[in-house]
């Protein structure tokens, strides 16, 4: 931790020590974000945003700059809502019918969802690809990831209420939708994260992170190993949510969400065959591995009696096992199982305790059984065990473990015995250390089987990748047959299981008496708790994100962290007003956009007069916290690329469907449809500050590095765009000055000045139209939005 924050850490952790875990600290009680939303009163007949902003401005003694001119506002609005440059007819509409008319038209257009859906994909850490070893070429593609992206775009375009949007993303499977409902794709929100080498603890951690940071601005993942250092989030809460996701799994056969066309039928047939193959292998392996484990009871027990736990029994899950090896995880469960029962008086493992646990270290001999016989009888030790121990009294450790194995296996093989039989149930049934859930079979397979199984599973995806006509399938979750009952992992270590906790919502919001989730895994309950109007965070977090994308700056500077570390926003009243409006307006974003862009606040100029008091205000409120002017913004990767395609007349507006590589020369579609890579990230993507899909992104960084300039100067993409822009004008106007005007209008949406005409004309004479067009594409004027 940095020294800057040290005093606070000390304070909070001291409090945390003094209070029982989970009780909100004094700090938290007063924290602005944890209070109920309190929208300030606003007089009717005036624009509420302006009233609230003006109040603050007045208190701070700041003056506002005037409204921007219409072309500036039109350009700003088009980038805000569509991420595309304005078309002449859009300017015309705004001039003729007012800016509101343009707003309506933009909100009704499907390009709106492409822009705002992409903002959400940053939060959702969306990628089209897998990560891990040997994930190249077709192997790296998640063939149906795009269904989530398309679902998001559609949802924004439909102005789907955001509470419903959240509910679908967490639990569309539990909303009684038809089996092929396109909304099932919503659960890509939970299934599209990184793969963490298939370590489910990390996968769940990522799910907890995206849900809590993305939806509520809470960094719950910080409570994985210890109670949250700043916020009132005990480790118990982390594992309550862990239990929700550990009780959910991805089905092998993903539900189909569109009707296959004729050319997609072949895929369907092959897919079903492959699914059957996967299921068959899984089930065979499950049965045989458990049977093998039972037959090796003697080996497991000997290990339990004579060795210390090895780290790979609990934390290394990718061993290259050979068939004859015992399974470390099963050994681990045997250790726990025996340790819990090897007590004096236990009817099965009482003798184990007396014979084995008290012997001197490194000694192989065991005490004489006769000494204990009377006590064993008295405590009701199972007769079959007693018989075995008296028939051939054990002398060495191995004798004891073999006697136990013989008796246990005997009972397990005797089908006449009830499953409740204490010996039989040691090897048969879910409580047995030899049992594991079907879905975890993979962890127990021998290397060659495991490779084969993985190949089969991978084959499902590869088949889909290679079948462009395959009907879409959704990347869903469903509740596991056996729900997982979470326990706290002490210090975040699965080898150190601690207190059990219920699957339930965060105590910070639901209170210390938070009721356990009642429905299955609890994903639906979780969604309801997150979107409850009583939850003070969700609407605020959302309103803040929306504001950020309209103004370039959020009201709360840490959009995914509203915890104690977050600064109380200057405009808290405004934030609360927006959050309240959002909830009362049925969680609809479009009305929020309307409200925001119709305000004087949003419509201010970004140009600052060089007179007082504005020159002073540039110093006193340099960050524009009080919103006395508009923030100039730079085009992000998508807007830049889409703009270059649009102004050069090359933009392909086809929506939805499978993605194409951004580096492909034929790819002229909007950037939101380009493959989002996780591993080999193309230079253009990382150099232009694209959101890393490794985890949920709160806001993108804005860096200025020469690699960006190199892209503008030398990349094929920009050079081709420049050429296309130049040739777009060519046929129409041979006159040099008029042609310059034409290129200006296409690239920058304005007339050149006389001076610019002259400069351009001189340059064209020496270097031609292509290179001239490229210069315009490289200008700051194109790159920044006033």
């Amino acid at each position, binding site marked *: 931790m940095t020294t800057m924050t040290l005093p606070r850490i000390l304070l909070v952790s001291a409090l945390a020590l003094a209070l029982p875990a989970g009780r909100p600290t004094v700090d938290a009680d007063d924290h602005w974000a944890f209070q109920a939303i309190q929208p300030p009163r606003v007089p009717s007949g005036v624009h509420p945003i302006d009233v609230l902003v003006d109040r603050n401005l007045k208190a701070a003694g700041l003056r506002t700059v005037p409204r921007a001119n219409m072309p500036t506002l039109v350009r700003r609005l088009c980038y805000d809502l569509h991420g595309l440059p304005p078309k002449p007819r859009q300017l015309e509409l705004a001039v003729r019918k007012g800016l509101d008319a343009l707003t309506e038209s933009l909100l009704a257009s499907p390009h709106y969802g492409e822009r705002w859906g992409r903002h959400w994909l940053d939060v959702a850490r969306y990628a089209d690809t897998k990560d891990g070893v040997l994930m190249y070429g077709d192997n790296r593609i998640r063939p149906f990831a795009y269904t989530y992206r398309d679902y998001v775009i559609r949802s924004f375009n439909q102005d789907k209420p955001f509470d419903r949007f959240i509910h679908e993303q967490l639990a569309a499977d539990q909303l009684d939708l038809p089996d092929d409902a396109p909304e099932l794709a919503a659960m890509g929100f939970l299934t599209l994260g990184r793969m963490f080498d298939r370590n489910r603890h990390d996968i769940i951690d990522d799910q907890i992170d995206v849900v809590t940071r993305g939806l509520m601005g809470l960094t719950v*993942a910080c409570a994985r190993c210890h109670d949250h250092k700043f916020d009132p989030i005990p480790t118990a809460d982390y594992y309550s949510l862990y239990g929700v996701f550990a009780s959910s799994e991805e089905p092998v056969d993903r539900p189909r969400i569109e009707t296959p066309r004729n050319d997609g039928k072949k895929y369907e047939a092959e897919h079903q065959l492959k699914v059957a193959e996967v299921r068959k292998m899984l089930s065979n392996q499950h049965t045989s591995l458990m049977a093998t484990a039972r037959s090796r009871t003697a080996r497991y027990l000997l290990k339990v009696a004579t060795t210390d736990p090895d780290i790979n029994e609990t934390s290394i899950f990718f061993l290259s096992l050979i068939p004859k090896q015992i399974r470390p995880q099963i050994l681990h469960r045997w250790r726990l199982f025996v340790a819990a029962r090897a007590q004096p008086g236990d009817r099965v493992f009482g003798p184990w305790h007396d014979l084995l646990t008290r012997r001197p270290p490194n000694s192989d001999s065991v005490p004489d059984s006769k000494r204990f016989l009377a006590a064993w009888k008295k405590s009701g030790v199972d007769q079959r065990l007693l018989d075995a121990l008296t028939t051939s009294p054990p002398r060495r450790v191995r004798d004891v473990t073999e006697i136990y194995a013989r008796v246990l296996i005997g009972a397990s093989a005797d089908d006449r015995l009830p499953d409740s039989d204490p010996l039989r149930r040691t090897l048969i049934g879910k409580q047995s250390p030899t049992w594991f859930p079907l879905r975890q079979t993979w962890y127990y397979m021998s*290397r060659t089987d495991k490779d084969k199984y993985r190949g089969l599973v991978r084959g499902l995806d590869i088949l889909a990748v290679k079948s462009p006509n395959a009907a879409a399938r959704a990347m869903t979750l469903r509740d596991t047959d056996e729900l997982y009952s979470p326990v706290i992992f002490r210090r975040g270590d699965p080898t150190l299981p601690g207190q059990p906790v219920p699957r339930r919502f965060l105590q910070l919001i639901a209170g210390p008496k938070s009721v356990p989730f009642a429905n299955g895994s609890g994903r639906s309950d979780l969604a309801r708790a997150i979107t409850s109007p009583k939850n003070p965070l969700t609407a605020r977090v959302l309103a803040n994100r929306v504001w950020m994308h309209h103004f370039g700056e959020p009201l709360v500077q840490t959009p995914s962290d509203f915890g104690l570390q977050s600064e109380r926003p200057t405009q808290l009243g405004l934030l609360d007003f927006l959050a309240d409006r959002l909830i009362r307006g049925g969680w609809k974003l479009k009305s929020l956009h309307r409200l925001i862009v119709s305000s004087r606040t949003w419509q201010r100029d970004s140009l600052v007069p060089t007179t007082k008091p504005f020159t002073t205000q540039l110093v006193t409120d*340099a960050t524009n916290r009080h919103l006395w002017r508009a923030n100039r913004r730079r085009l992000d990767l998508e807007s830049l690329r889409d703009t270059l395609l649009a102004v050069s007349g090359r933009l392909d507006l086809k929506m939805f469907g499978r993605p194409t590589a951004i580096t492909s020369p034929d790819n002229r579609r909007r950037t939101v449809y380009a493959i989002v890579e996780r591993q080999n990230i193309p230079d253009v993507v990382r150099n232009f*500050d694209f959101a890393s899909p490794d985890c949920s992104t709160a806001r993108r960084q804005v860096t200025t*590095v*020469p690699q960006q300039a*190199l892209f503008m*100067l030398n990349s094929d993409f920009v050079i081709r765009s420049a050429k296309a822009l130049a040739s777009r004008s060519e046929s129409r106007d041979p006159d040099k000055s008029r042609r310059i005007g034409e290129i200006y209008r296409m690239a920058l949406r304005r007339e050149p000045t006389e001076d610019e005409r002259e400069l351009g004309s001189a340059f064209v004479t020496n*270097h031609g139209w292509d290179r001239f067009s490229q210069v315009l594409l490289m200008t700051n004027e194109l790159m920044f939005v006033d």
Partner: protein
Amino acid sequence: MSGFHPLSTSAGSRRDALLSLGAGVGTLALAQILNADTTALAPRPAHHRPRARNIIHIYLNGGPSQVDTWDPKPLLDRHGGRPIPIGNLTTERETGVALASPFRFQQYGDSGLWASTVFEKTASRHADRLCVIRSMHSNTPNHEQSMRLMNCGDERLSRPSYGSWLTYGLGTENQNLPGFVTLCPGLPVADFSNWRSSFLPGVYQGTYLDTRKKEVESLVANIRNKTLPRDAQRQQLDLLAKLNRRHRETRKEDALLEARIASFELAFRMQLEATDALDLSHEPKSIHKLYGTDKLHGRQMLMARRLVERGVRVVQCYHGDVQPWDSHEGLADAHAKLGREADGPIAALLTDLAQRGLLDETLVVCGGEFGRTPAVEIPLGANRKPTGRDHNHHGYTVWMAGGGTRGGMTYGTTDDFGYRAVDNPVHVHDLHATMLHLMGFDHEELTYHHAGRDFRLTDVHGRVIDELLA
């Protein structure tokens, strides 16, 4: 170029921008970013006076065997073919009896450093420069996890590589080149995650260069304009500058506009310099001969030297595609061959760095992601002979040279058979802490605020091994 703040998230204040970015570089660097005209890659001072300015990491990917290179075990050889009395430790695969080393060991230099014939040239010429850590250990016997641990300080989670941390902390000395370059013929296991920037800004990611290719364009994307001569491009930039200045007339307060104007000038200069860095043709014959540039590893080492010479902070050189040192079978031949490829160029690099006075300020690190088992591996297939060693994370060797390390020493020991680090064990986190220390950073203070907390390369671990410092 005054007073701009390219790390800013918009026209907001630098302070806010930094807070939102997580300014944990330390107070000095913070002040630098706050006040200076800089870019995300501008050079910044470290926490303390650095001993090393650059790192060259020779990455013998796949896991070289410690007991066949730098950690002789006479007892292992004596037990060859018989069970190891202390028992076998768990690694990825089942292992059997002791496998004696097929390589001869001898002592070198005034320090009497032990080395096998695999690294004969390096040892015979540079024994007294090497600081050999024989007690490295890590967490898991698997390549991908151990690769990421060695590079990023975590096995599975997305964390920035140490090269990204250093570039974030120090900026890049030469604005015309990336601060962190990765050289590999092909791709190592866990590929791009080995040099990722993760939650740090993308500019800090390692620039990967496939050294099987020879064209310099692959160093920096778009480094060359295929159609436009340089003087024509200059004129293009002049027109751009004029237009941008007019645009800026009414927007003078906005530093981001100026930053972008400057970045075009920088890019223009970068085209020459970056191209030159990898162009080996200007090197004298003697240098080509020294490195053996007729072979890939020689070329790669020479490139590394040219890059650090030009101010690239971190250069990683991977031995080869996937995991060449992964000798599960036929270890005797495989390790001998790998040694023939790597040994000469490594010795040449050290010689060359030393003769240029660069070794003092360049930390050379050499090793794999783990070592190998002293016991023989039992092959999966029934009819295959046991002739190799399995992965071993319990104990292995990494050596360093130059950059403020003590030469001619060994540190730490493994047990009598070379299985587990027993005396003075050095975890990868400790190695990282020490590397950062040599580069001028307190590993606990080089932090970045992300997802609600401050992250660092060594997480909650790591200690600087003082005994390794000169």
